[in-house]
């Protein structure tokens, strides 16, 4: 395990050299959607993302705990039975609602899990885009104060 990892590390160095020298062109990413990430309301987020307002759907599942031990790291997962091309996570009471936006090309499972920051207890929305339309599910996640508090 040890030597295997060392090989990975060496390889990592090689790859980063390649990236630095422009040998890795496939890493080109889409433009960051500044308007969507600067939006403070659901309307504005959806306007920037395109595709209209989401419709609530039982086909969308938001996997997250009811209570977060710490708001700095809240695990959030989205799955769906729809044929998803995109997913997004929105947090109602954060300063900016959109936390993350995901592209799922053909062959990629309709599934994503990540971790988000929450400033306070809030509704969290899982959005799924399929056939050009947005669908959603939500739940409230309670953010607790923890530890000695100092």
């Amino acid at each position, binding site marked *: 395990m040890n030597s295997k990892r060392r090989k990975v590390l060496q390889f990592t160095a090689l790859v980063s050299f390649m990236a630095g020298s422009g040998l890795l062109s496939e890493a080109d990413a889409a433009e960051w959607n500044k308007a969507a990430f600067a939006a403070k309301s659901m309307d504005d987020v959806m306007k920037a993302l395109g595709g209209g307002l989401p419709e609530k759907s039982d086909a969308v599942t938001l996997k997250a705990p*009811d209570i977060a031990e710490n708001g700095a790291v809240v695990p959030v997962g989205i799955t769906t039975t729809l044929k998803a091309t995109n997913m997004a996570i929105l947090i*109602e009471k954060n300063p900016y609602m959109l936390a993350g936006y995901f592209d799922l090309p053909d062959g990629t499972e309709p599934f994503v899990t990540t971790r988000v920051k929450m400033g306070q207890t809030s509704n969290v929305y899982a959005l799924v885009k399929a056939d050009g339309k947005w669908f959603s599910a939500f739940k409230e996640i309670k953010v607790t104060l923890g530890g000695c508090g100092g």
Partner: protein
Amino acid sequence: MRNSLIAWAAAALVAAPVWVGAQSASDEIAKYREMLADGNPSELYEAAGEELWVKPSGPLQATLEKCDLGLGPGVVDGAAAQLPRYFADTDRVQDLESRLMTCMEKLQGIPSEQVVKESFGKGVRKDIEAIVAYIVTHSKGMKVNVPATHPKEKEMVALGEKLFYFEGGPMDFSCASCHSEDKKRIRLQDLPNITKPQGAADGWGSWPAYRVSSGEFWTMQRRLNDCLRQQRMPFPIYASDATIALSMYMAAKANGGEITTPGLKR
């Protein structure tokens, strides 16, 4: 519009209970921890530490590959499980961090006094933290092996026990204020009962750990430092006898218990 969606959300919430009891709260916290366990960012520190172990560094531009953590030069597997322990070359009981300082001084020429003066997360200490993540990962799943048989080790256990019960400061706190009874919590965080082997193993065996609240990897020295800060004590000097004695007390009490480091904590 947003409003219609929010209204729908509000309506759906009406059916939900206004508050949840302590039991379901701790069940939900357990679920939260389970969801996080899959990707412990300690791995990022461990990877950095593995590189630092073999990287020439310090005024002498040497690596740490000859560092003896108690099982012979360069032996990393199981090294954290048998620390703290007595080292004849320094004639001291040392924990992982103080031993790494000895290695850095002897092999790499980095003066220990410099490291003591630094802050957590900065300078050489930052490197030590990553190296600690690497070392403790190589004792994961093993048993704590700190029998404390050497007379100097026994002295440190006894001193650690006295420090554990030592009350002071404007809030009259000692380690024992929070860690000497079963099933106690501060807020929603469980407090291991360190006076018993199981509790000592739960505590000692799960640190060092990645703290999600600060987004940092905390070594045992840092864990103790922050406990003492919250106890409203003066500042414990890095790798000082008192800090090593407290570790020795916990490790000896935890002897035979399972090591789950690096942990993932609130």
